[in-house]
């Protein structure tokens, strides 16, 4: 059965809208690349990059994946559960700082001396 022979499906959003979303995504990507060469602390850089990535992901999910135009019940079923599960993955993250303190350190001269900066 050909679906195209039947009535046309509704697919909200114009090509102009999708193109403008693409432009935003490209601009945010260029900002990310620019940030790589700006001197800043790792924590600040990571926070800014993750912030930009979350904005980009939201734009893709909302417009390209069309979730903005779906029923609220679908959005509420998918998104909060995913966010909570991802946040739960972080529960053991503080352990990484502990293990970094426990690491064996060379007592003798290191095999290859670090370059002086």
């Amino acid at each position, binding site marked *: 059965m050909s679906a195209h022979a039947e009535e046309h499906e509704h*697919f909200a959003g114009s*090509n102009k809208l999708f193109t403008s979303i*693409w432009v935003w995504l490209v601009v945010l990507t260029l900002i*990310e690349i620019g940030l790589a060469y700006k001197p800043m602390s790792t924590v600040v850089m990571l926070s800014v990059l993750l912030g930009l990535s979350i904005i980009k992901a939201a734009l893709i999910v909302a417009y390209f994946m069309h979730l903005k135009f779906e029923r609220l019940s679908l959005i509420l079923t998918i998104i909060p*559960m995913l966010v909570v599960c*991802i946040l739960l993955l972080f529960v053991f993250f503080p352990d990484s700082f502990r293990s970094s303190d426990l*690491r064996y350190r060379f007592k003798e001269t290191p095999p290859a001396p670090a370059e002086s900066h």
Partner: protein
Amino acid sequence: MSTEARAVHFPAADWDGGVHPYRVGHRKLGMWLFIVSDSLTFSALLIGYSYLRASNVWPTPFHFNPSILFSSLMTMCLLSSSLTMVFGVSASSRGDWQKARKWILATIFFGLAFLVLHLYEWNHLIHDGLTPFSLPAQWVTQYTAADGTLPSPLFGATFFAITGLHMFHVFTGAIYLAVVAARVKKLKHEDIEISGLYWHFVDLVWMFVFPLIYIMSVHVDH
């Protein structure tokens, strides 16, 4: 309250059967659930990578050429492929299957371009001596900490595992889209939309892989 009034105030009728409560077909709902589970897979990998990075001396070896240049071009390829995909889905909703096929083929082209660039970049790193469990000798010298702690040899393991799994998704996505493009006339609009969901998801994952793996590992001369 009468039964009729209750039906208006409470959407319970949605769950009584006979309708799609989410107003999407079961296949589309299935793809959304798959995407949720796959998001968790990638989240776990990226958080595992961050864990290793925070607890070790980590090399930051990527120079602008080729790694950052190539990964940026790859990002543009994936972003553009998402745009062509959404054009394809939009054309399919209007019943214009010829245009839909054309846009889906353009999407596959960008996907394959991504793969070629990615493999070239992988090849460059492998040529430098990076393996899943060891670093090139030059990196070990360059990134050993001041107190003599060696950089983690797991850089390669995390890099190849995460970008490799993503590359596998792009590869399977390209095959999936090729099948959809070949059968576009016979498929329902929602089936084409579902293949688009998968493709956009692959793009979405890259939006986290690119900054965390590439941008955070840029070599900066002091």
